[in-house]
């Protein structure tokens, strides 16, 4: 065979095809993948994870029909209370932990309840253990995902900010009547979580 030169129109068509294909591919990725996907940090139960500027360690989740408010008043719900036990610290300076969001299998997203409880401030390498309280419908139980948005920007952010993702399982058949007592956040000795 002789190695003839490729015609210019063939080169042009191939280049155009590559450009159009790349554009379509990027569009498909932008539609299918969350904008912050590449910065997601997969976490595991009981294992320290760094989602800069936050370090956190989630020990588990449980469900209750009733919880006690800070004033020892039972808080009722038409759904169920999901309590997530965890400890966290920061990496650089004192700050809040940002947002925690619980996502159910249908993609419904739940923020921490605003009825009585909140997160707490954290400092570098000073770990504090406490409990996050979510109020969700009964059919949300099962396989859940906890997202930790340390930046506080949340999913609407266009900037690829780091966030943590943890798979949690809460058995709908294991809802305890309660009332659950939410302990005050506790400063931990070094090395404890």
């Amino acid at each position, binding site marked *: 065979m002789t190695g003839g030169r490729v015609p210019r129109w063939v080169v042009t068509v191939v280049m155009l095809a590559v450009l159009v294909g790349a554009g379509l591919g990027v569009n498909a990725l932008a539609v299918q993948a969350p904008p912050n996907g590449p910065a997601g940090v997969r976490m595991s139960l009981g294992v320290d994870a760094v989602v800069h500027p936050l370090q956190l360690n989630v020990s588990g989740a449980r469900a209750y029909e009733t919880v006690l408010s800070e004033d020892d008043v039972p808080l009722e719900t038409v759904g169920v209370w999901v309590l997530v036990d965890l400890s966290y610290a920061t990496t*650089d300076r004192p700050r809040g932990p940002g947002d925690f969001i619980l996502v159910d299998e249908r993609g419904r997203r739940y923020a921490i309840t605003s009825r009585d409880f909140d997160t707490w401030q954290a*400092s*570098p390498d000073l770990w504090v253990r406490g409990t996050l309280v979510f109020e969700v419908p009964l059919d949300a139980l099962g396989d859940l995902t906890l997202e930790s948005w340390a930046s506080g920007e949340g999913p609407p952010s266009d900037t690829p900010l780091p966030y943590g993702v943890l798979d949690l399982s809460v058995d709908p058949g294991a809802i305890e009547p309660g009332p659950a007592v939410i302990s005050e956040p506790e400063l931990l000795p070094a090395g404890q979580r």
Partner: protein
Amino acid sequence: MSGPTPSLPPYVPGGGREDWMAPAREPFPAAPPPLPQRRSRRATAILAVVGILVLGALGWRVSAEARDAWWNGEAHVPVPVDANGVAELDGLQVELTGVERLDDGVSTYGDRWEPPDGLVLWQVGLAVQNTNTEILSLDVLVQDTEGRRFETGSEVPYGVDGVQDSLEVAPPEPGDDPLPDVQYLLVLMPQDAEPAAVRLESTWSLAPDYFRLPVTQ
């Protein structure tokens, strides 16, 4: 109007087709002399510089809001400290009198308080004089040699004799007591943290300026 069709040479079977169909060949024109290599490199360099400038200008324009927020809201311009360790800005004068490690814990409301294992309690002494009525409070943080910052008054006990929960900065009203000569604050840090500086910051009344008082041993 077209002229008469030029007559083709008679077709000869077996003869060369090209000789019959091809127009008269003309010699290729001579190739132009190559551009000087120096000019080509200069054009490439100019193109690269222009590209960088365009990208930089776009980035500068797009980041205007973020830069403005950071510049005005973040403490990043340290106030100069004189040879005596005193820093002054707009009528507010501060001096670090000492940073002391409290290995024995502290007494709070009659009880002994010791930090959890692996954590260390420190006491910071600051002398403050202020005539600026727009600066009423400051956050006091201890920065360690690794750059970590720990806020005084956080995760430490209240009600410790001789120790304040926060730094008093507001100028006293006429008839009020003057600010204490030295104010003491507590800060909790991990065992491996070595204090390097004490920072006094305020997003609302001081930023982008802040006080950075080095810890001298």
